[in-house]
Protein backbone atom coordinates (compact mmCIF):
# COMPACT_ATOMS: atom_id res chain seq x y z
CA UNK A 1 0.00 0.00 0.00
CA UNK A 2 1.44 3.37 -0.98
CA UNK A 3 2.18 5.71 1.92
CA UNK A 4 2.30 9.48 2.02
CA UNK A 5 -1.34 10.15 1.13
CA UNK A 6 -2.80 13.48 2.23
CA UNK A 7 -6.49 14.23 2.63
CA UNK A 8 -7.83 17.74 3.22
CA UNK A 9 -11.49 18.01 4.19
CA UNK A 10 -13.22 21.38 4.38
CA UNK A 11 -10.09 22.99 5.79
CA UNK A 12 -10.51 26.56 6.99
CA UNK A 13 -7.94 28.78 8.67
CA UNK A 14 -8.84 32.07 10.30
CA UNK A 15 -6.78 34.39 12.40
CA UNK A 16 -7.75 37.56 14.19
CA UNK A 17 -6.46 40.99 13.31
CA UNK A 18 -6.58 42.60 16.75
CA UNK A 19 -5.83 46.11 15.52
CA UNK A 20 -8.73 46.09 13.09
CA UNK A 21 -10.87 44.09 15.47
CA UNK A 22 -11.91 41.51 12.91
CA UNK A 23 -11.07 38.05 11.69
CA UNK A 24 -9.23 37.29 8.51
CA UNK A 25 -9.97 34.09 6.60
CA UNK A 26 -6.81 32.95 4.86
CA UNK A 27 -8.04 29.57 3.63
CA UNK A 28 -11.70 28.57 3.31
CA UNK A 29 -13.24 25.09 3.00
CA UNK A 30 -10.41 23.57 1.03
CA UNK A 31 -10.83 19.94 0.12
CA UNK A 32 -8.60 17.80 -2.07
CA UNK A 33 -6.46 14.76 -1.69
CA UNK A 34 -2.99 13.81 -2.76
CA UNK A 35 -2.12 10.19 -3.48
CA UNK A 36 1.04 8.64 -2.12
CA UNK A 37 4.00 9.39 -4.40
CA UNK A 38 2.13 12.03 -6.36
CA UNK A 39 3.59 15.42 -7.34
CA UNK A 40 0.96 18.10 -6.81
CA UNK A 41 1.43 21.84 -7.27
CA UNK A 42 -0.68 24.58 -5.78
CA UNK A 43 -0.89 27.78 -7.79
CA UNK A 44 -2.78 30.96 -7.06
CA UNK A 45 -2.43 34.73 -6.86
CA UNK A 46 -0.17 36.19 -4.17
CA UNK A 47 -1.88 36.39 -0.81
CA UNK A 48 -4.31 33.56 -1.60
CA UNK A 49 -3.18 31.45 1.33
CA UNK A 50 -1.19 28.80 -0.53
CA UNK A 51 1.73 29.06 1.89
CA UNK A 52 -0.71 28.97 4.81
CA UNK A 53 -2.17 25.77 3.37
CA UNK A 54 1.28 24.19 3.41
CA UNK A 55 1.91 25.34 6.98
CA UNK A 56 -1.42 23.75 7.94
CA UNK A 57 -0.44 20.41 6.42
CA UNK A 58 2.93 20.61 8.18
CA UNK A 59 1.19 21.22 11.51
CA UNK A 60 3.00 24.54 12.01
CA UNK A 61 -0.34 26.36 12.11
CA UNK A 62 -3.53 24.94 13.63
CA UNK A 63 -6.60 24.25 11.49
CA UNK A 64 -9.63 26.36 12.50
CA UNK A 65 -12.22 24.07 10.94
CA UNK A 66 -12.15 20.86 8.96
CA UNK A 67 -9.42 18.23 9.09
CA UNK A 68 -6.19 17.19 7.47
CA UNK A 69 -4.95 13.63 7.66
CA UNK A 70 -1.77 11.92 6.53
CA UNK A 71 -2.26 8.24 5.74
CA UNK A 72 -5.53 8.35 7.65
CA UNK A 73 -4.05 9.89 10.80
CA UNK A 74 -5.08 13.49 11.58
CA UNK A 75 -2.34 16.12 11.75
CA UNK A 76 -1.75 17.29 15.32
CA UNK A 77 1.30 19.46 15.63
CA UNK A 78 4.57 19.13 13.74
CA UNK A 79 4.70 15.72 12.08
CA UNK A 80 8.01 13.81 11.77
CA UNK A 81 6.84 12.07 8.59
CA UNK A 82 7.07 15.38 6.76
CA UNK A 83 9.84 17.29 5.12
CA UNK A 84 9.54 21.02 4.43
CA UNK A 85 11.61 23.18 2.10
CA UNK A 86 11.20 26.86 2.92
CA UNK A 87 11.02 29.78 0.55
CA UNK A 88 14.00 31.45 2.22
CA UNK A 89 16.68 28.90 2.87
CA UNK A 90 16.47 28.03 6.53
CA UNK A 91 19.97 26.62 6.88
CA UNK A 92 21.80 26.91 10.17
CA UNK A 93 24.47 29.53 9.48
CA UNK A 94 26.77 28.38 12.31
CA UNK A 95 26.95 24.84 10.95
CA UNK A 96 28.89 23.50 8.00
CA UNK A 97 27.30 21.88 4.94
CA UNK A 98 27.90 18.40 6.37
CA UNK A 99 26.59 19.39 9.81
CA UNK A 100 23.48 20.95 8.26
CA UNK A 101 22.70 17.88 6.20
CA UNK A 102 23.33 15.62 9.19
CA UNK A 103 21.25 17.67 11.63
CA UNK A 104 17.89 15.91 11.11
CA UNK A 105 19.61 12.56 11.68
CA UNK A 106 21.19 13.91 14.87
CA UNK A 107 17.78 15.19 16.02
CA UNK A 108 16.22 11.82 15.25
CA UNK A 109 18.85 9.99 17.24
CA UNK A 110 20.43 8.15 14.29
CA UNK A 111 23.82 6.73 15.31
CA UNK A 112 26.80 8.68 13.96
CA UNK A 113 28.25 5.71 12.04
CA UNK A 114 24.91 5.20 10.28
CA UNK A 115 24.43 8.92 9.66
CA UNK A 116 27.89 9.63 8.22
CA UNK A 117 27.61 7.58 4.99
CA UNK A 118 24.06 8.84 4.40
CA UNK A 119 25.19 12.44 4.74
CA UNK A 120 28.13 11.81 2.42
CA UNK A 121 25.79 10.14 -0.07
CA UNK A 122 23.43 13.10 -0.13
CA UNK A 123 26.22 15.63 -0.40
CA UNK A 124 27.52 13.72 -3.42
CA UNK A 125 24.01 13.49 -4.87
CA UNK A 126 23.54 17.28 -4.77
CA UNK A 127 26.99 17.79 -6.27
CA UNK A 128 28.59 19.47 -3.28
CA UNK A 129 31.40 17.01 -2.61
CA UNK A 130 34.39 19.04 -1.48
CA UNK A 131 32.17 21.65 0.16
CA UNK A 132 31.46 19.64 3.33
CA UNK A 133 33.29 22.07 5.59
CA UNK A 134 31.93 25.25 4.05
CA UNK A 135 29.50 27.46 5.94
CA UNK A 136 26.26 28.58 4.25
CA UNK A 137 27.43 32.18 3.77
CA UNK A 138 30.25 30.87 1.58
CA UNK A 139 27.84 29.21 -0.86
CA UNK A 140 25.78 30.59 -3.74
CA UNK A 141 21.97 30.75 -3.55
CA UNK A 142 21.63 27.64 -5.70
CA UNK A 143 24.09 25.67 -3.58
CA UNK A 144 22.28 26.67 -0.39
CA UNK A 145 19.02 25.47 -1.90
CA UNK A 146 20.66 22.13 -2.69
CA UNK A 147 21.81 21.82 0.90
CA UNK A 148 18.26 22.58 2.08
CA UNK A 149 16.95 19.87 -0.24
CA UNK A 150 19.51 17.31 0.96
CA UNK A 151 18.72 18.22 4.56
CA UNK A 152 15.07 17.40 3.92
CA UNK A 153 15.66 14.25 1.88
CA UNK A 154 18.35 12.73 4.10
CA UNK A 155 15.79 11.37 6.56
CA UNK A 156 13.57 10.19 3.71
CA UNK A 157 10.26 11.76 4.75
CA UNK A 158 7.15 10.27 3.23
CA UNK A 159 5.84 13.67 2.23
CA UNK A 160 7.84 16.68 1.06
CA UNK A 161 6.23 20.10 1.21
CA UNK A 162 7.91 22.86 -0.77
CA UNK A 163 6.97 26.51 -0.39
CA UNK A 164 8.13 28.39 -3.51
CA UNK A 165 11.55 26.85 -2.99
CA UNK A 166 13.17 28.18 -6.15
CA UNK A 167 11.50 31.60 -6.22
CA UNK A 168 14.66 33.50 -5.32
CA UNK A 169 16.93 31.81 -7.88
CA UNK A 170 17.88 33.05 -11.33
CA UNK A 171 16.23 31.28 -14.27
CA UNK A 172 19.17 29.03 -15.26
CA UNK A 173 19.86 27.85 -11.72
CA UNK A 174 16.19 27.39 -11.23
CA UNK A 175 15.82 25.08 -14.25
CA UNK A 176 18.77 23.01 -13.09
CA UNK A 177 17.27 22.70 -9.63
CA UNK A 178 13.87 21.75 -11.05
CA UNK A 179 15.46 18.98 -13.10
CA UNK A 180 17.40 17.74 -10.07
CA UNK A 181 14.21 17.73 -8.05
CA UNK A 182 12.41 15.69 -10.71
CA UNK A 183 15.24 13.20 -10.80
CA UNK A 184 15.30 12.79 -7.03
CA UNK A 185 11.53 12.51 -7.00
CA UNK A 186 11.46 9.81 -9.70
CA UNK A 187 14.05 7.81 -7.76
CA UNK A 188 12.38 8.07 -4.36
CA UNK A 189 8.74 8.54 -5.30
CA UNK A 190 7.80 10.56 -2.24
CA UNK A 191 4.65 12.64 -2.19
CA UNK A 192 5.48 16.25 -3.09
CA UNK A 193 3.22 19.24 -2.56
CA UNK A 194 4.79 22.18 -4.31
CA UNK A 195 3.57 25.77 -3.88
CA UNK A 196 4.46 28.23 -6.62
CA UNK A 197 3.12 31.31 -8.34
CA UNK A 198 4.79 30.24 -11.58
CA UNK A 199 2.35 28.30 -13.74
CA UNK A 200 5.02 27.07 -16.18
CA UNK A 201 7.00 25.61 -13.32
CA UNK A 202 3.88 23.93 -11.97
CA UNK A 203 2.98 22.35 -15.32
CA UNK A 204 6.52 21.17 -16.01
CA UNK A 205 6.85 19.45 -12.63
CA UNK A 206 3.45 18.15 -11.59
CA UNK A 207 1.02 15.28 -11.96
CA UNK A 208 -1.80 17.54 -10.89
CA UNK A 209 -2.28 21.25 -10.29
CA UNK A 210 -4.63 22.81 -7.74
CA UNK A 211 -5.69 26.34 -8.72
CA UNK A 212 -6.66 28.56 -5.77
CA UNK A 213 -8.91 31.59 -5.81
CA UNK A 214 -7.91 35.03 -4.60
CA UNK A 215 -8.23 35.53 -0.85
CA UNK A 216 -9.92 33.88 0.96
CA UNK A 217 -8.22 30.94 -0.72
CA UNK A 218 -10.55 28.24 -1.98
CA UNK A 219 -9.99 25.48 -4.52
CA UNK A 220 -11.07 26.83 -7.89
CA UNK A 221 -10.18 23.85 -10.06
CA UNK A 222 -7.89 20.88 -10.27
CA UNK A 223 -6.05 19.85 -13.45
CA UNK A 224 -4.37 16.59 -14.34
CA UNK A 225 -1.12 17.03 -16.24
CA UNK A 226 -0.61 13.95 -18.36
CA UNK A 227 2.61 15.06 -20.05
CA UNK A 228 5.02 12.14 -20.52
CA UNK A 229 7.65 11.34 -17.92
CA UNK A 230 10.56 11.41 -17.35
CA UNK A 231 10.53 15.11 -18.10
CA UNK A 232 13.16 17.75 -18.55
CA UNK A 233 11.72 21.09 -17.50
CA UNK A 234 13.56 22.91 -20.27
CA UNK A 235 12.35 20.58 -23.01
CA UNK A 236 8.83 19.77 -21.86
CA UNK A 237 7.88 23.36 -22.66
CA UNK A 238 8.12 22.50 -26.36
CA UNK A 239 5.69 19.60 -26.04
CA UNK A 240 2.55 20.34 -28.13
CA UNK A 241 0.24 19.81 -25.12
CA UNK A 242 2.19 22.18 -22.91
CA UNK A 243 0.91 25.37 -24.54
CA UNK A 244 -2.65 24.08 -24.58
CA UNK A 245 -2.52 23.19 -20.88
CA UNK A 246 -0.96 26.53 -20.07
CA UNK A 247 -3.68 28.40 -21.92
CA UNK A 248 -6.52 26.48 -20.25
CA UNK A 249 -5.18 26.85 -16.73
CA UNK A 250 -4.11 30.44 -17.24
CA UNK A 251 -7.67 31.37 -18.28
CA UNK A 252 -8.77 30.02 -14.92
CA UNK A 253 -6.02 31.70 -12.97
CA UNK A 254 -6.07 35.07 -14.74
CA UNK A 255 -9.24 36.42 -13.11
CA UNK A 256 -8.03 35.42 -9.67
CA UNK A 257 -4.67 37.08 -10.22
CA UNK A 258 -6.38 40.27 -11.30
CA UNK A 259 -8.73 40.11 -8.32
CA UNK A 260 -5.83 39.48 -5.96
CA UNK A 261 -3.92 42.37 -7.46
CA UNK A 262 -6.86 44.79 -7.24
CA UNK A 263 -7.47 43.86 -3.61
CA UNK A 264 -3.84 44.37 -2.70
CA UNK A 265 -4.04 47.79 -4.36
CA UNK A 266 -7.11 48.87 -2.41
CA UNK A 267 -5.53 47.68 0.81
CA UNK A 268 -8.11 44.98 1.51
CA UNK A 269 -5.20 42.69 2.25
CA UNK A 270 -2.75 43.45 5.04
Amino acid at each position, binding site marked *: MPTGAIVLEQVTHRFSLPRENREFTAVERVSFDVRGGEFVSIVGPSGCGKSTLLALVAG*LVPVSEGRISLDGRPVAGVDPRLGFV*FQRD*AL*FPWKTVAQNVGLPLLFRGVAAEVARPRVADWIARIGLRGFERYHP*HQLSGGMRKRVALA*MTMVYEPEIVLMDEPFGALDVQTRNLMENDLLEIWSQFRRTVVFVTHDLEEAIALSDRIVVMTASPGRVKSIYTISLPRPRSVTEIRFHPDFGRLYETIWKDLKDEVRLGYERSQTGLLD
Partner: protein
Amino acid sequence: MATSAARPVSWTEIRLWRAGLLAAFLLLWEVATRRAWVDPFFVSQPTVLATQIADWIRTGFIFRHLLVTMQETIIGFLLGTVLGVAVGFCFAHWEKLAHIFDPLMVALNAMPRVVLAPLFILWFGLGLLSKVVMVISLVFFVVFFSTYTGIREVDRDLVNNARLLGAGPRHLIRHVLLPSALTWIFASLRTSVGFALIGAVVGEYLGSHEGMGYVISYAESMFNATGVLAGLLVLMAAVIAIDLGLKRLDARFSYWKPVAK
Protein backbone atom coordinates in the same frame (compact mmCIF):
# COMPACT_ATOMS: atom_id res chain seq x y z
CA MET B 1 35.08 65.17 -4.85
CA ALA B 2 33.60 61.80 -4.14
CA THR B 3 36.58 59.79 -5.35
CA SER B 4 37.97 59.12 -1.86
CA ALA B 5 35.63 56.14 -1.41
CA ALA B 6 37.34 54.25 -4.21
CA ARG B 7 40.87 54.70 -2.85
CA PRO B 8 41.95 51.97 -0.42
CA VAL B 9 42.92 53.12 3.05
CA SER B 10 46.65 53.01 3.69
CA TRP B 11 47.06 51.60 7.19
CA THR B 12 50.72 52.52 7.43
CA GLU B 13 49.76 56.10 6.79
CA ILE B 14 47.01 55.99 9.41
CA ARG B 15 49.32 54.46 12.01
CA LEU B 16 51.89 57.15 11.30
CA TRP B 17 49.26 59.81 11.82
CA ARG B 18 48.17 58.26 15.09
CA ALA B 19 51.72 57.98 16.44
CA GLY B 20 52.55 61.49 15.27
CA LEU B 21 49.52 63.05 16.96
CA LEU B 22 50.22 61.19 20.21
CA ALA B 23 53.87 62.28 20.16
CA ALA B 24 52.89 65.89 19.43
CA PHE B 25 50.41 65.86 22.32
CA LEU B 26 52.95 64.45 24.79
CA LEU B 27 55.58 66.92 23.60
CA LEU B 28 53.23 69.87 24.01
CA TRP B 29 52.27 68.64 27.49
CA GLU B 30 55.93 68.26 28.49
CA VAL B 31 56.98 71.65 27.12
CA ALA B 32 53.95 73.43 28.58
CA THR B 33 54.69 72.14 32.07
CA ARG B 34 58.48 72.73 31.86
CA ARG B 35 58.03 76.31 30.70
CA ALA B 36 55.45 76.71 33.51
CA TRP B 37 52.64 77.69 31.10
CA VAL B 38 50.62 75.16 33.09
CA ASP B 39 51.33 74.17 36.69
CA PRO B 40 52.56 70.53 36.78
CA PHE B 41 51.02 70.28 40.28
CA PHE B 42 47.62 69.99 38.59
CA VAL B 43 48.40 68.15 35.36
CA SER B 44 51.66 66.34 36.14
CA GLN B 45 54.20 65.78 33.35
CA PRO B 46 54.72 62.94 30.84
CA THR B 47 58.29 62.19 31.97
CA VAL B 48 57.30 62.23 35.63
CA LEU B 49 54.36 59.95 34.86
CA ALA B 50 56.61 57.55 32.99
CA THR B 51 59.06 57.45 35.92
CA GLN B 52 56.18 56.87 38.33
CA ILE B 53 54.77 53.95 36.33
CA ALA B 54 58.26 52.47 35.83
CA ASP B 55 58.80 52.77 39.58
CA TRP B 56 55.50 50.99 40.31
CA ILE B 57 56.41 48.21 37.95
CA ARG B 58 59.96 47.87 39.38
CA THR B 59 58.77 47.61 42.98
CA GLY B 60 55.84 45.37 42.02
CA PHE B 61 53.53 47.77 43.85
CA ILE B 62 51.18 48.16 40.91
CA PHE B 63 50.81 44.44 40.24
CA ARG B 64 49.46 43.77 43.71
CA HIS B 65 46.71 46.37 43.25
CA LEU B 66 46.03 45.56 39.62
CA LEU B 67 45.64 41.91 40.58
CA VAL B 68 43.04 42.78 43.22
CA THR B 69 41.06 44.89 40.75
CA MET B 70 41.27 42.24 38.04
CA GLN B 71 40.12 39.58 40.48
CA GLU B 72 37.03 41.58 41.40
CA THR B 73 36.38 42.42 37.75
CA ILE B 74 36.71 38.86 36.49
CA ILE B 75 34.74 37.18 39.28
CA GLY B 76 31.98 39.77 39.06
CA PHE B 77 31.99 39.68 35.29
CA LEU B 78 31.70 35.90 35.10
CA LEU B 79 28.96 35.70 37.71
CA GLY B 80 27.09 38.63 36.16
CA THR B 81 27.32 37.08 32.68
CA VAL B 82 26.16 33.65 33.82
CA LEU B 83 23.27 35.19 35.74
CA GLY B 84 22.38 37.49 32.85
CA VAL B 85 22.36 34.67 30.29
CA ALA B 86 20.40 32.35 32.60
CA VAL B 87 17.73 34.90 33.53
CA GLY B 88 17.55 36.25 29.97
CA PHE B 89 17.06 32.73 28.72
CA CYS B 90 14.32 31.92 31.24
CA PHE B 91 12.49 35.16 30.47
CA ALA B 92 12.61 34.51 26.74
CA HIS B 93 11.39 30.97 27.32
CA TRP B 94 8.58 31.63 29.80
CA GLU B 95 6.86 34.72 28.51
CA LYS B 96 4.70 35.01 31.61
CA LEU B 97 7.79 35.42 33.75
CA ALA B 98 8.95 38.24 31.50
CA HIS B 99 5.59 39.99 31.77
CA ILE B 100 5.55 39.76 35.56
CA PHE B 101 9.09 40.97 36.13
CA ASP B 102 9.40 43.46 33.29
CA PRO B 103 8.67 46.59 35.39
CA LEU B 104 11.04 45.38 38.10
CA MET B 105 13.89 44.84 35.64
CA VAL B 106 13.38 48.25 34.06
CA ALA B 107 13.22 49.93 37.49
CA LEU B 108 16.32 48.15 38.78
CA ASN B 109 18.24 48.95 35.63
CA ALA B 110 17.25 52.61 35.90
CA MET B 111 18.85 52.87 39.34
CA PRO B 112 22.28 54.54 39.23
CA ARG B 113 24.57 51.77 40.51
CA VAL B 114 27.39 54.17 41.40
CA VAL B 115 25.20 55.69 44.09
CA LEU B 116 24.43 52.19 45.37
CA ALA B 117 28.12 51.50 45.94
CA PRO B 118 28.21 52.94 49.49
CA LEU B 119 25.26 50.70 50.39
CA PHE B 120 27.02 47.64 48.98
CA ILE B 121 30.08 48.50 51.04
CA LEU B 122 27.88 48.87 54.11
CA TRP B 123 26.25 45.49 53.46
CA PHE B 124 29.17 43.46 52.20
CA GLY B 125 32.19 45.10 53.82
CA LEU B 126 35.34 46.76 52.54
CA GLY B 127 36.72 43.62 50.92
CA LEU B 128 36.23 41.68 47.69
CA LEU B 129 32.55 40.85 48.10
CA SER B 130 31.14 44.37 47.92
CA LYS B 131 33.07 45.05 44.68
CA VAL B 132 31.99 41.78 43.11
CA VAL B 133 28.36 42.62 43.89
CA MET B 134 28.86 46.06 42.40
CA VAL B 135 30.31 44.54 39.21
CA ILE B 136 27.49 41.99 38.97
CA SER B 137 24.89 44.73 39.31
CA LEU B 138 26.39 46.48 36.27
CA VAL B 139 27.19 43.48 34.08
CA PHE B 140 24.01 41.53 34.73
CA PHE B 141 21.65 43.98 33.04
CA VAL B 142 23.72 44.46 29.91
CA VAL B 143 24.00 40.69 29.39
CA PHE B 144 20.42 40.02 30.46
CA PHE B 145 18.90 42.43 27.96
CA SER B 146 21.02 41.25 25.05
CA THR B 147 20.38 37.56 25.78
CA TYR B 148 16.67 38.25 26.06
CA THR B 149 16.53 40.13 22.75
CA GLY B 150 18.91 37.64 21.14
CA ILE B 151 16.63 34.72 21.86
CA ARG B 152 13.44 36.56 21.01
CA GLU B 153 14.86 37.72 17.68
CA VAL B 154 15.76 34.21 16.56
CA ASP B 155 14.65 33.60 12.98
CA ARG B 156 11.19 31.94 13.14
CA ASP B 157 11.82 29.97 9.96
CA LEU B 158 14.93 28.50 11.55
CA VAL B 159 13.02 27.43 14.64
CA ASN B 160 10.21 25.96 12.52
CA ASN B 161 12.71 24.19 10.30
CA ALA B 162 14.45 22.67 13.31
CA ARG B 163 11.11 21.45 14.67
CA LEU B 164 10.20 19.92 11.32
CA LEU B 165 13.60 18.25 11.16
CA GLY B 166 12.76 16.59 14.44
CA ALA B 167 14.37 18.81 17.08
CA GLY B 168 13.16 18.40 20.66
CA PRO B 169 13.23 21.27 23.17
CA ARG B 170 16.84 20.48 24.16
CA HIS B 171 17.98 20.34 20.55
CA LEU B 172 16.33 23.68 19.94
CA ILE B 173 18.23 25.29 22.80
CA ARG B 174 21.55 23.68 21.97
CA HIS B 175 21.51 24.00 18.16
CA VAL B 176 19.33 27.02 17.45
CA LEU B 177 18.61 29.35 20.36
CA LEU B 178 22.01 29.47 22.02
CA PRO B 179 24.11 29.83 18.86
CA SER B 180 21.97 32.64 17.54
CA ALA B 181 21.83 34.38 20.92
CA LEU B 182 25.60 34.07 21.21
CA THR B 183 26.03 36.75 18.57
CA TRP B 184 24.08 39.19 20.69
CA ILE B 185 25.76 38.12 23.89
CA PHE B 186 29.18 38.64 22.37
CA ALA B 187 28.24 42.04 21.04
CA SER B 188 27.35 43.01 24.61
CA LEU B 189 30.40 41.40 26.22
CA ARG B 190 32.78 44.10 25.14
CA THR B 191 30.53 46.75 26.63
CA SER B 192 30.00 44.80 29.83
CA VAL B 193 33.74 44.22 30.38
CA GLY B 194 34.20 47.99 30.44
CA PHE B 195 31.31 48.23 32.89
CA ALA B 196 32.82 45.49 35.04
CA LEU B 197 36.09 47.36 35.43
CA ILE B 198 34.28 50.62 36.18
CA GLY B 199 32.24 48.83 38.85
CA ALA B 200 35.29 47.39 40.53
CA VAL B 201 37.26 50.66 40.46
CA VAL B 202 34.36 52.78 41.69
CA GLY B 203 33.77 50.30 44.51
CA GLU B 204 37.43 50.48 45.51
CA TYR B 205 37.49 54.22 45.16
CA LEU B 206 34.63 54.62 47.61
CA GLY B 207 35.89 52.23 50.24
CA SER B 208 38.71 49.71 50.32
CA HIS B 209 42.34 49.30 51.27
CA GLU B 210 43.64 47.83 48.03
CA GLY B 211 43.09 47.85 44.27
CA MET B 212 43.49 50.45 41.56
CA GLY B 213 40.54 52.49 42.82
CA TYR B 214 42.23 52.68 46.18
CA VAL B 215 45.57 53.74 44.58
CA ILE B 216 43.83 56.55 42.72
CA SER B 217 41.76 57.62 45.69
CA TYR B 218 44.84 57.62 47.96
CA ALA B 219 46.87 59.71 45.48
CA GLU B 220 43.98 62.12 45.20
CA SER B 221 43.78 62.60 48.94
CA MET B 222 47.51 63.49 48.87
CA PHE B 223 46.86 66.02 46.07
CA ASN B 224 49.13 63.86 43.94
CA ALA B 225 48.03 64.44 40.33
CA THR B 226 50.83 62.20 39.04
CA GLY B 227 49.54 59.26 41.12
CA VAL B 228 45.97 59.75 39.88
CA LEU B 229 46.96 60.05 36.23
CA ALA B 230 49.42 57.15 36.40
CA GLY B 231 46.72 54.98 37.97
CA LEU B 232 44.32 55.92 35.19
CA LEU B 233 46.92 55.13 32.53
CA VAL B 234 47.49 51.67 33.99
CA LEU B 235 43.74 51.03 34.00
CA MET B 236 43.47 52.24 30.43
CA ALA B 237 46.18 49.79 29.34
CA ALA B 238 44.37 46.97 31.16
CA VAL B 239 41.06 47.72 29.41
CA ILE B 240 42.72 47.85 25.99
CA ALA B 241 44.42 44.51 26.61
CA ILE B 242 41.15 42.87 27.69
CA ASP B 243 39.29 44.35 24.75
CA LEU B 244 41.83 42.97 22.29
CA GLY B 245 41.49 39.54 23.88
CA LEU B 246 37.70 39.67 23.58
CA LYS B 247 37.92 40.72 19.94
CA ARG B 248 39.98 37.60 19.26
CA LEU B 249 37.49 35.45 21.14
CA ASP B 250 34.57 37.00 19.23
CA ALA B 251 36.32 36.26 15.94
CA ARG B 252 36.72 32.63 17.02
CA PHE B 253 33.02 32.26 17.73
CA SER B 254 31.87 34.14 14.62
CA TYR B 255 33.74 32.02 12.08
CA TRP B 256 30.44 31.25 10.41
CA LYS B 257 29.50 34.86 9.75
CA PRO B 258 30.25 36.61 6.48
CA VAL B 259 33.14 39.03 6.83
CA ALA B 260 31.87 42.60 7.03
CA LYS B 261 33.34 44.77 4.33
